[in-house]
């Protein structure tokens, strides 16, 4: 081993050739997505709203479970909370729905802090069931508010849904009806939320916080011993995902325009499906939840008519993937072809030349 100055021969890179190409492709894709309402039919736009919010929820759960080791089965708490906040803020306080979505995120984060103080007393698998109990508490408490429809639920009146900021401009621009214009706005908000979630996750993972998360994932005691404050970092991740999940929940219920405690705090819709997406796509990667969302959307479209059998199939598929391909579809592809679209790992590059 020669004593060359290390700085000259080694460098740290995160970029890969595939990631550079993916970056350009992503820009084109985003432009296409943004322009979609100009040429796509309305039912396709509605499908895409579903795809976008499921992808965003999946990113959030993946950050929690796949990176921070916080396997929550109770994220429906924040979807439902966001939905109910939207209804309360628009219906009762008269706030514009788009502002209400942002506020729902802030308030969800404020709820997440005391919630975390309780559920963080439980570790590992017990944390999972603890979050589920908390979600049930949220559901039962919201069922008590008679002004929000109590146990049976309530609808958003047209005075709220038809006066979302920008609706008249969209109606003029695309020459569509009011409900179609509302869908277009909801779609754009969903697109912004999904991209923002993706960007937040990506930049968290590339930051110091991401390095700390990686250390925690590999070994909690070792991370602690090099100065990582495990609990604070987990709390930060929990609160950030709660804020994002709350905003997504508000958006979901702006589109649905009808809310009930059982639907808003449904463990199947907002957690089981999301877990399925992340597991099938590949947990612990940014690409995985995106791949999983596409698979889930196609299955939902073609098989949801089979009712209970469809859910049995989903359960079996998730078990099979967990047992035989625990890294999911993307994990398989990435391992086989060395493909990385969202580079978050730091790689040591050794310049060839004077041997070593």
């Amino acid at each position: 081993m020669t004593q060359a100055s290390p700085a000259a021969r080694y460098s740290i890179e995160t970029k890969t050739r595939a990631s550079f190409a993916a970056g350009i492709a992503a820009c084109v894709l985003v432009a296409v997505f943004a322009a979609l309402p100009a040429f796509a039919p309305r039912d396709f736009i509605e499908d895409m709203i579903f795809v976008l919010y499921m992808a965003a929820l999946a990113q959030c759960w993946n950050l929690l479970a796949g990176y921070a080791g916080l396997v929550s089965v109770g994220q429906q708490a924040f979807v439902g909370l966001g939905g109910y906040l939207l209804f309360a803020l628009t219906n009762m306080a008269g706030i514009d729905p788009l502002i209400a979505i942002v506020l729902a995120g802030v308030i969800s984060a404020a709820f997440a802090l005391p919630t975390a103080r309780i559920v963080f007393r439980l570790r590992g698998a017990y944390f999972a069931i603890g979050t589920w109990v908390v979600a049930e508490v949220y559901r039962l408490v919201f069922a008590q508010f008679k002004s929000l429809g109590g146990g049976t639920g309530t609808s958003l009146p047209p005075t709220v849904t038809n006066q979302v900021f920008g609706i008249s401009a969209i109606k003029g621009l695309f020459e569509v009806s009011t409900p179609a214009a509302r869908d277009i706005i909801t779609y754009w908000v969903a697109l912004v939320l999904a991209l923002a979630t993706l960007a937040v996750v990506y930049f968290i993972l590339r930051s110091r916080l991401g390095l700390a998360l990686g250390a925690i994932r590999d070994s909690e005691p070792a991370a602690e011993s090099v100065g990582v404050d495990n609990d604070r970092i987990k709390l930060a991740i929990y609160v950030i995902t709660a804020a994002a999940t709350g905003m997504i929940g508000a958006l979901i219920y702006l589109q649905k325009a009808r809310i009930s405690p059982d639907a808003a705090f449904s463990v199947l819709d907002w957690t089981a499906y999301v877990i399925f997406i992340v597991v099938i796509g590949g947990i612990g990667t940014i690409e995985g939840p995106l791949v999983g969302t596409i698979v889930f959307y196609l299955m939902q479209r073609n098989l949801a008519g089979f009712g209970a059998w469809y859910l049995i199939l989903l359960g079996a598929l998730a078990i099979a993937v967990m047992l035989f391909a625990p890294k999911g579809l993307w994990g398989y592809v990435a391992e086989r072809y060395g493909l990385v679209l969202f580079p978050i790992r730091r790689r040591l590059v050794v310049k060839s030349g004077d041997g070593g």
Partner: protein
Amino acid sequence: MTGWVDALIQGILLGGLYALFAAGLSLIFGIMRLVNLAHGDLIVLGAFMILTIAAWLGLDPFAATLVALPVMFAAGFALQYLLLNRTLGRDLLPPLLVTFGLSIMIENGLLELFSADSQRLDAGAIETASIKLGGGIGIGVVPLLTLASAIAVIFALNLVFYRTSLGRAFRATADDLEIAQLMGIDHSRIFSVAMGLGFIVITIAALYLGMRANFDPTIGPGRLLYAFEAVIIGGLGSFWGTLAGGIIVGVAQTVGAQINPEWQILAGHVAFLAVLIFKPRGLFPRAFD
């Protein structure tokens, strides 16, 4: 006043049912650190099995349970041997997600087979029999039998755990898997026996679930949460603590319902969260983690 005393007594009896739910969960966790998210759905599955056996063979629920016990033991053994043993390891996710998937499969399988209709195990005259205590308070025979069975099951589990060679193997694998293997313990078989035993407790819980109230395929997750709360309140690793935890959840629910019928379930959850805040390791902790 009578109402409150009655709520307390009924709560203690209800706690017997929750202790039965919890004993199986506690047993399985205690031995192999496996948190089974399908536990509640397995109890409901047990209730449907007893219902089906009772209908086919024209038996009463108690006799049908005796027939179901060996079947369920074998099912538990096979589930652990063929599926769950593959998920155990350092990683937390596989056992959690596999049992979550199982939970969804069982619930929807039961929906497909039995529809969403409410069912009940018909035990005849014993169902309505009660012992009068005076002052308008009566104790139902079935609830009393539930509590007695919970005490018996926990007594039996303690005997198995601390007085038999099987129990020694259970404790050894729970303490240190590698050393237990070095001592010649076949851990995958031990775990499978433990799950079989867990299924026996599940089947007994299913019998009382089905006799005390209506059940349908969707109520599994709720039962899982009550069982879990009882285990955490009691403190990990203590079977008698689990009984106490079950009773606390039961009393909280009936007292909550006495204040406002809509608050029954909520009151149980709130009691659990309160214990978590003030005594995070439970009331009678024995194990760490």
